[in-house]
């Protein structure tokens, strides 16, 4: 028997910044600049951003990962809670404002990238990280084999935990590996020495840049989820069919950017169909913000109907 009467309200999140926990509740429409405006004062940052001017909601809807997911994990590990507008118009609280929870079923991770079928977020609670004050971007250029070797060295040691990003990029200029380091200024030399050591061992051309902000690559047209040991070769195989590709090497995620123009959706669809069987076999998937979501399988249709019925029932007093 319950010792507590049922709650009368939904405990919705209200905007806050908790500088001790490093958590921030803000509208889903907030942009990178708006997030930074709130966090910089407290030497905190939200590292998982793809675009400087687009709302956070659009970025999270477009993909599951960002470049800095190498270090901090996917969006779903960095969004702690949401206010979620159900199709009925009612708003429900999903998730928490604390970093750990196993209270009930995980609707947060289920809904975060579910498209608009179940509604949409109105606010996010995001997890912030210490802003160490110094960002350096290293670029390795060389043969595919050299870069493959370089990525292996970058990932298969304890240094891997400290790279914000290890990205394999292909574009019109060729292939390169981009490593983003975010650290306190006093540690920069330690990181640079390690990067130089790797560059030297693979005979790659190596340059360092000190940007004012981490790279914003924009929203991908097509996202592929594969394994860590397949993502780089897949990027290479598809490089001729896209304008640019960015493989997040530790995450097994490939962001593809196609040439804009006619038949964009058809081209994306063709590309997705080409790789879908391989991806599905290993528990991977694809997603494009330009295409409708896949139809549900026969097995999941009744599960979806039950969930939709529950959501519909939220209109009923």
């Amino acid at each position: 028997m319950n010792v507590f009467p049922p709650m009368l309200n939904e405990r919705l999140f209200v905007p806050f910044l908790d500088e001790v926990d490093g958590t921030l509740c803000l509208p889903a429409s907030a942009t990178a600049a708006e997030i930074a405006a709130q966090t910089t004062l407290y030497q905190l940052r939200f590292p998982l951003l793809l675009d400087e001017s687009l709302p956070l909601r659009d970025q999270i809807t477009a993909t599951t990962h960002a470049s800095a997911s190498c270090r901090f994990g996917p969006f779903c590990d960095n969004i702690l809670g949401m206010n979620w507008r159900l199709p009925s118009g009612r708003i429900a609280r999903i998730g928490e404002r604390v970093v750990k929870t196993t209270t009930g079923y995980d609707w947060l991770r289920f809904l975060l990238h579910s498209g608009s079928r179940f509604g949409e977020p109105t606010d996010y609670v995001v997890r912030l990280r210490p802003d160490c004050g110094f960002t350096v971007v290293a670029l390795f250029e060389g043969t595919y084999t050299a870069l493959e070797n370089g990525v292996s060295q970058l990932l298969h040691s304890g240094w891997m935990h400290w790279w914000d990003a290890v990205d394999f990029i292909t574009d019109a200029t060729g292939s390169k590996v981009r490593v983003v380091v975010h650290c306190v200024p006093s540690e920069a030399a330690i990181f640079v020495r390690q990067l130089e050591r790797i560059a030297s061992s693979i005979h790659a051309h190596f340059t360092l840049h000190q940007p004012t902000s981490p790279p914003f690559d924009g929203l991908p047209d097509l996202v592929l989820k594969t394994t860590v040991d397949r993502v780089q070769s897949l990027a290479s195989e598809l490089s001729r069919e896209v304008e640019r590709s960015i493989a997040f090497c530790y995450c097994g995620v490939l962001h593809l950017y196609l040439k804009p123009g006619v038949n964009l959706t058809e081209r994306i669809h063709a590309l997705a169909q080409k790789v879908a069987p391989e991806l599905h076999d290993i528990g991977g998937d694809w997603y494009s913000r330009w295409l409708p979501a896949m139809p549900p399988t026969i097995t999941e249709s009744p599960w979806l109907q039950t969930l939709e019925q529950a959501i519909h029932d939220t209109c009923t007093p």
Partner: protein
Amino acid sequence: MMGPWRSFVLKASSIDISTHKHSLVKSSLESQLKTLLPRGRVFTSAAQLAGYGADGLGYKNHIPDAVVIPADAEELVGFMKGAKALHVPVILRGAGTSLSGGPVAAQGGVIVHTSALKRIREMNVKGFWCEVECGVALNDLDAALKPHGVFYPPDPSSGPVCTLGGNVASNAGGAHCFRYGVTSNYVLGVEAVTLDGTVHRFGGPAGGRGPWREDWKRFMIGSEGTLAAFTRFWLRLLPLPEKVWTFRATYPDLKTTEAAIHALVAHTSYPAAIEMLDPRGVAMVESSQMACGLPEGSFMLLVEIDGPEPLVNARVEPVAELLRRAGSKDVMFSDEDELRKKLWKARKAAGGLLGQLSPAYVVQDAVIPKRALAEVLQLVYDEADAAGIPAVNVFHAGDGNLHPNFLFDSRVPGDLDKVELISKRLMQRVIEVGGTLSGEHGIGNDKSSYMPLVFGPDSMRLQLAVPASFNPAHQMNPLKVFDNRRFAA
């Protein structure tokens, strides 16, 4: 004179009839189970079932009607196919180390012990993933991975025996979650068997949705055996850090300890673990054979940083200085394995000592915003002292994940009521300050009555829709997570 005698005869006869009927039902269940599990084991005798009455929570005992041990995954699938027709609850169980009353037969039924599914099926070091069966013990996986230079980060203290099936079912955490995260951060795929015996593969080595429209594995992780049986998982791995430094510092009061924790969580060294032991825990350790010279009345912080040697070595002095600046006069630290073990000694010993000191204890698992640490801990002390119930706090301070342990004797009338009252007041305050009921233990049947504190009417509907999708009759692990999940055969 006839009245009482007649009454006695009727009573005796009804007991006899009921016992006879029960034994018939039981023998029928036993024969059905033996048909479903021709190669596995079926236990029905009182002596065999006794060990399955409780989990790590200890004091709540629910003897199941039967226990089965499928010989392998194939037999588990066969059992699930026939389980619906048994018309009894089905409860999956790994090592039974849960601390929330999860894998117990709260409404009777059959416990499915997954101890035979203990194969590590594949380790793909290049791809940073492994495939394991649900009965693999956590530390066995660690030992298998270590020679390859990789590890699976979640590290609940029951690691030597707890199974990955239980870890996934309860979304287990551990001491190093502050930087590394919990189980849900590392599960790439789940193979689950629903009650009709259908095998579903949600995700896989690539960690995506697979051919599904939705990411169903998200509901499976942390579902406490209420949706499906798990047979195997695909888990994400990380490279082992080369160097580890452990720090131990003591503080004179709660306020300075809280200040140290606040400074540590924002520090650019990104500690892997920030653990705390309160003065009652310190006193418990110091009066035992595990004494390690901690000052009386002190709060102890245990901090760990790790990484590549040149990097982590450069962070040692800044962390030590932070601990000193926050008010500690005895900061100790080391990178040598033997010394590090000594620094961990008090933290590790505390859990075991609780069991020796008290016939029973309840450990809560609330997570709170860290600015409320001192306030909520004070509430624990005030409430426990007023009720005369000893309380010891040993917990994951970096995550704000409290583990107040309330020591009591379930044989003393009223003791359990007092503990439940303290827990109720604690949970109310936890929710008021913006926290949640459980960070890593799960809800089980221990915290299910507090769920209405967390979920409003709309979010409660959404919550209950999840078991309604996969297990609408609540045959799987009834009375867990939500206490209105009752199986009606």
